């Protein structure tokens, strides 16, 4: 192992060890700015990826983006056109923004978002996809003007991004929530099918359960979510990202 490789490893491991001691999302962001700044990164976003029913701005866990750019990004609904977001959903490996493919002729909006990002000193960046066990999708994305991205630095950045995401996620997850309020995977399944427009009888057939059991799951889920009825439960579950139909 050469000297430079050791340095990257050292930066990554001290970054990760320090993360555990930080108790506020802002401290984590400052910590990221300092350590990832060594590789040239200036801008950061850690965000869940919205499904068609969700609003992009509500999925963001933490961000430090150039003034004005986030507002434009949301207003223009660039999340629907961004080739980085698309590749993030479909890839398990991290990638440089420039590696996210799109068709210039057929996808002018994709071309537009990449160009406008460059105007905000976000010419290139590095994206780390997050794929949860039960459908949660998220993205850790770092940008900057002059980046030290090489086969030697990327593994260190990759690891740092994943641990930063986990720490932010921990700090943003309300700890006071009672565990008995967690939806079971069956309750989530039933809500997901309900969100997709299936009736109790249809869900019963799909999940090979009785209709009564399916109704029981809906009622229990509604109770846990403090929802007035089944439809209200679906809306709350979507808002809280508990289901991802």
């Amino acid at each position, binding site marked *: 192992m050469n000297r430079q490789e050791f340095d990257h490893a050292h930066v990554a491991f001290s970054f990760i060890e320090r993360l555990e001691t930080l108790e506020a999302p802002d401290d984590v962001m400052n910590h990221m700015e300092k350590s990832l700044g060594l590789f040239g990164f200036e801008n950061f976003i850690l965000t869940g990826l919205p499904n068609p029913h969700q609003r992009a701005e509500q999925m963001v866990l933490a961000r430090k983006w150039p003034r004005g750019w986030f507002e434009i990004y949301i207003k223009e609904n660039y999340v629907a056109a961004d080739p980085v977001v698309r590749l993030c959903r479909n890839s*398990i490996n991290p990638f440089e923004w420039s590696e996210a493919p799109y068709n210039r002729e057929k996808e002018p909006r994709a071309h537009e978002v990449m160009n406008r990002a460059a105007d905000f000193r976000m010419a290139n960046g590095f994206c780390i996809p997050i*794929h949860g066990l039960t459908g*949660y999708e998220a993205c850790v994305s770092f940008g900057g003007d002059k980046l030290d991205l090489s086969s030697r630095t990327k593994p260190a950045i990759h690891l740092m991004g994943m641990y930063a*995401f986990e720490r932010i996620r921990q700090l943003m997850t309300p700890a006071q929530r009672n565990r008995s309020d*967690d*939806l079971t995977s069956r309750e989530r399944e039933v809500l997901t099918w309900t969100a997709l427009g299936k009736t109790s009888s249809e869900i019963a057939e799909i999940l090979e359960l009785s209709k009564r059991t399916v109704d029981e799951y809906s009622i229990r889920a509604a109770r846990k979510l403090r929802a007035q009825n089944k439809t209200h439960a679906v809306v709350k579950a979507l808002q809280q990202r508990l289901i991802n139909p």
Partner: protein
Amino acid sequence: MTAIHIVSSANRHLYETTLDSYFRIRHDVFAKERGWKAVERSDERDIDAFDRDDTIHLIAMDGDRVVGGQRLVPTTTPHMLSEIFADLAAVKGIPVGPTIWEASRYFVVRERRSGRTDATMLAGVQEFGVDEGITHYSAVIETWWLPRLHEAGFVVRPLGLPTLIENQWAIAAEVEVRQSSRDRARALGGIGGSVLVRRGLKVPLIGEVAHVT
């Protein structure tokens, strides 16, 4: 309901058919699906130098059907990190000790990859660790799995930087055995209690575990 069967040399006579199916599925997953040339065998059974008498298999079963699995090897003997992947632990070194076991060959069959079987397997390996006095597992894991383990409440310490193995980013890591991890994995899978089946085995199975007093 999926259960995790503990299979060791002490009770393997009860699981001959299951084990054959387990090794065949491992070959399907790792040799055929993943294309790992090193594990290809003409008899289409993935059995290697780490499937020994002291290896413990955690086999996920729906009734008689194998739907997932992983194996555990004591780190006080030759194991994959010490023999094959030592480079992956270049930063922190290879964890070795009587209460540290290495987990490997984790798989879930293709039809069961929606999360629930994974949660059961993760709950099972933590439950086994808690019951047996294991303090840590070491493992080489695909890096994209790290957030999934985090989601299941696992405390994972990397031992080195991600490295490309068979076209997949992987890291060596040490996972703590914690009741809270077991419970979080259970909650994720909607599991009420124990997922382990110890047919013909005593508890604890690992006799020589040195308990810290």
